[in-house]
């Protein structure tokens, strides 16, 4: 990322840019002991993630829900262990990982994005072949992986979707995590990690195209499982906060959804996810795809974009219905039936408040 790019042109700002003033305030008011290689004390990191106050600056909560999990994650990083966040899609694994890195190291950009095509070079290092051919192996010709750069700087590297990499590639991490060095035999030297180095990896539990992690690798991580939000209030709060932030970042020319719309969307999502109505009286079918909190957020922002671009700027039931259709019906026929059943068996009977949304959804889901 070059410096000339102004912040406004970046599609998505990183956590350290987005919350720069909060981080600054925390650093200034921090009184706790700062571990080597850290930007601030563990307590300050906790405040940054779970919210609170730093002097006069309000710190917004970044991870809403289980504070204890955040404590466990920070405690892990204090002991220079690597952290593995596991959870179903859309449980804020990457979000938490990015914010933790931003607070602790100040730079969340050292990322390996795991895919089936990720090779060991992406984890360790590769070469600039033109220079390699011209001059032979020299430090200049070495292309360091984000992990190697984090080691050099004593920072935190993030490994996204680690379980999507082939097992052999995952296992390249084993010796890095236990020895905390990467040796470069071509140069006859090794890179030793400085204090503060750690890795935060994220992985999905149930999804297609996921590889099982080896026991040896798992043993080198502290594993924390992130659950789906446990109460509807927590989930509504999460959605409200993120939708507001995204709307202002993307400059969406639509009003932030009303409490009622939020409540409806989160209710529908929670009911379909758990396969049960909130009052636990009716059993439902769940759609094949994952219906996470993250999807609720993107659904609402989509609907807002629809409303802004093609509507009045006010979020209508039709906009919501279009969003819901897209989020829920992924595996065409089956999901369509699930959604239809939900509409007729549950939503239709919910009374006048839901009528508008019901008819709008019904119309789209033909």
């Amino acid at each position, binding site marked *: 990322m070059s410096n000339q790019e102004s912040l406004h042109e970046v599609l998505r700002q990183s956590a350290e840019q987005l919350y720069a003033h909060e981080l600054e305030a925390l650093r200034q008011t921090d009184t706790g002991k700062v571990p080597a290689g850290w930007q601030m004390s*563990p307590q300050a990191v906790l405040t940054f993630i779970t919210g609170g106050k730093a002097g006069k600056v309000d710190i917004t909560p970044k991870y809403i829900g289980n504070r204890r999990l955040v404590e*466990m994650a920070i*405690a892990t990083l204090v002991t220079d*262990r690597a952290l593995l966040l596991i959870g179903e899609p859309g449980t804020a694994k990457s979000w938490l990982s990015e914010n933790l890195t931003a607070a602790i190291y100040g730079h969340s950009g050292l990322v390996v994005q795991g895919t089936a095509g990720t090779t060991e070079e992406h984890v360790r290092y590769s070469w600039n072949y033109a220079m390699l051919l011209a001059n032979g192996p020299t430090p200049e010709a070495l292309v360091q992986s984000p992990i190697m750069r984090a080691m050099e700087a004593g920072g935190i590297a993030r490994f996204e979707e680690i379980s999507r990499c082939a097992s052999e590639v995952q296992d390249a991490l084993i010796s890095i995590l236990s020895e905390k060095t990467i040796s470069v035999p071509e140069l006859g030297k090794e890179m030793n990690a400085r204090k503060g180095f750690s890795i935060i990896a994220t992985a999905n539990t149930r999804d297609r195209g996921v590889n099982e992690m080896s026991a040896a690798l798992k043993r080198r991580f502290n594993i924390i499982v992130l659950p789906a939000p446990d109460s509807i209030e927590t989930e509504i709060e999460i959605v409200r906060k993120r939708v507001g932030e995204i709307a202002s970042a993307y400059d969406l020319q639509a009003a932030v959804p009303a409490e009622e719309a939020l409540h409806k969307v989160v209710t529908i999502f929670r009911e379909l996810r758990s396969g049960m109505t909130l009052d636990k009286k009716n059993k439902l079918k769940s759609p094949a795809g994952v219906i996470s909190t993250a999807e609720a957020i993107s659904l609402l922002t989509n609907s807002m974009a629809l409303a802004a671009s093609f509507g009045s700027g006010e979020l209508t039931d039709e906009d919501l219905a279009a969003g819901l259709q897209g989020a829920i019906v992924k595996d065409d026929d089956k999901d369509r039936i699930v959604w239809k059943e939900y509409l007729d068996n549950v939503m239709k009977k919910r009374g006048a408040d839901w009528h508008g949304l019901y008819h709008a959804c019904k119309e789209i889901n033909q």
Partner: protein
Amino acid sequence: MSTGNGNGVHIFGVRHLSPGGAMHLLSELDRIQPTAVLIEGPADATPEIRHLVHRKTRPPVAILSFTAELPVRTALWPLAEYSPEYQAMKWAADHRAEASFIDLPSSVMIALQEKRDLARKQRPALGDVPTAEEPDEQTEPLSLEEREELFSDHQHGSLYDQIAKLAGEDDYEMYWERSYEHNLNPDAYREAILAFSEQMRALTEEQEKIHATVEYAYNAVREAYMCRKIQDAIQQGHQPDRILVICGAYHAAALRTSVHIMTDEEMKTLPQRPTRLTLMPYSYYRLSSMSGYGAGNQAPYYYELMWQQMKSGALDELPHLYLSSVARHLRQSGTHRSTAEVIEAVRMARSLAALHHGSAPVLRDLRDAAQTLLGHGDLAVVAESLAHINVGTSIGHLAEGVSQTPIQDDLNRLFKELKLGKYKTTVATDLVLDLRENRRVRTEASAYLDLNRSFLLHRLQLLGIRFAQLKSSGQEQASWAEQWVLQWSPEAEIQVVESTLLGETVEVAAAYVLQQKLEACTTIAEASRLIVTACECGMVTQLENARQTLQRLAVDNQDVIQIASAAKGLSTIIQYGDIRRVQTEPLVPLLEQLFMRACLFLTDNSQCKDEVAAEMMSAIHELNTISLDHGEAVDESLWLHELQQLMSRDDLNAKLSGFACSLLMERNVLEASQASAEVSRRLSPGVPAELGAGWFEGLSQRNRYMLLSRISLWEQLSDYIDALEQDDFVRALVFLRRAFSTFAPHEKNMIAELLGEIWGVHAEQVAEVLTEELKAEETKMIDDLNDFDFDDF
């Protein structure tokens, strides 16, 4: 540094079951060297202190107080090794100081308790006023009833939750452990706890005066009484500054500022209920399952570990000990975890504690670290091991004869009388009883020794005291022999003590339990089982009650299966009752009545599906046996008539009809010609395969030699099969195959030979073909049968 009250008495506030408190208390005791140690606890339990500190006593133990009359009410004061009170008593014994309990006697305590319960029920809802109606929840021993109340008391929890939240902890337990248990600085604990309780009181007292007057009065009475006891100690000649009072933190502030001292007149006006008091062994498991009770309740063994570590000055190593114990337990149950992971878990727990500015990890930190490192993020993996290490399996022990409830006395007397004393060991021992009268001895007591033993053991079983297990015995001795496995355990001791609440002797308690069961009983099968139980326990009065219960229930019952099983129970008792010297005559009319009902509803019940037929068959078998055994009492001719009905009617379950037919053949009621007519009627061409073959299946359930001896039957079967169409044949085959599956190989051979004779084939050839291995082709045909589609039925 004395925290004395007006006259210089030292007050030390503790939380019950708190190792930290015990540790600080010990150093305080050493510093003050008191001559009198006054402990919050029922004053009438003071004489028990010498038993509590006896060198053979192993905590956990409890002081149990119970009312002698109904309704039984109890109060319980459990003590663990690490209870401050227990350590204080031990200290006093070692240093020749006088230790005594100074709280209200249990008789008053229980009487007041009743008033409180009453008041609580009458009190209107308080809305959202944040009162803490029992501010000393965490510092008070609570009775069973009280605990339940507390459990549902949400308002109450909120105050403690708020405190924890303000301190940045997830729950109050974490807050307490971090703030008080780990704090080993001298004086800091006492000061902190005093300040805490003063503030707590200030917060709740005003509200309580208005909204919970009974609670307020209850505490005031207790504190006045305690002050009185302190004053008494001073008058007995103890120097005020050589007196140390140990009480719940909540009361510490009050005793310190010296509230009202109770006068003699006031003491006389206190309500009372006559109570008894005893010590009983206790277990960590019970301690942990008492929700709402003070610190250490959830994890007694963890707190014991903490206490041991504190004593050896190695509190720092508690996380190592705890987490490696968890890992060891995991390995034993087959989940391997490395030492490296334990090390990392300790580090993580420490850094979690540091996040809360704590000096050492609390239980919750250890749990979360274990979940992350040893469970790989999954709590379920480590949950069992954690529970094991938290709770532990310790069971307390008291010196012989210390724990004396009337029922224990009674049981010991019975053990002596019945010469069972030697079986009271923890080693499992077999005991075979011969219930018959021993004619070679002179006294009646020894003639019926085994019978009386059997009564006792059955009664203990009824009381749920796990001392004796009955093994099923061999058939030939069934009526007069019983095989028992006897094993005594501390758990059994606890169960005996608890049975005190049911009655003063084993017999009375057992009768009470049986009566309760009878009142709750709703099915006749259950009632008949209770009759058997009453008989086994030798309880004549209850036998009559049980008989009435069964009679009452039987009037409305039309289910032959249930009636038959009840009747069977009765029949056994009537036949063998005299072995137990039980008068069984009153049961005979009931048996007649049950049998009669069974006969009357037999055909109705026989219109059933095949699934029920098996049960019906065994019911019919039982009834038939009864009609044979009690021929003079029950209406045998009615029975035979009903069986004939069942046999000849075509609208009933074919299997049962077949079964009835075989019974009638067996009893020689059916003549050969009638039998063969019936067989040919049932197996005539055109009868649907499933009915014909099903009928044959029922027929073949009974005496097979009788069937095998009737060649005509097999001829008829053979003709029937010959006459079947291909489709029907396959259907019939399925049923017949099932019918024959229960035949033994030699029986099958005999059938084959019979059929061979009928078909004019040489017997040996037939046998050869039959015993040959199946060919692949045949195997396939049989497999195809398995997939047979029964389509419409």
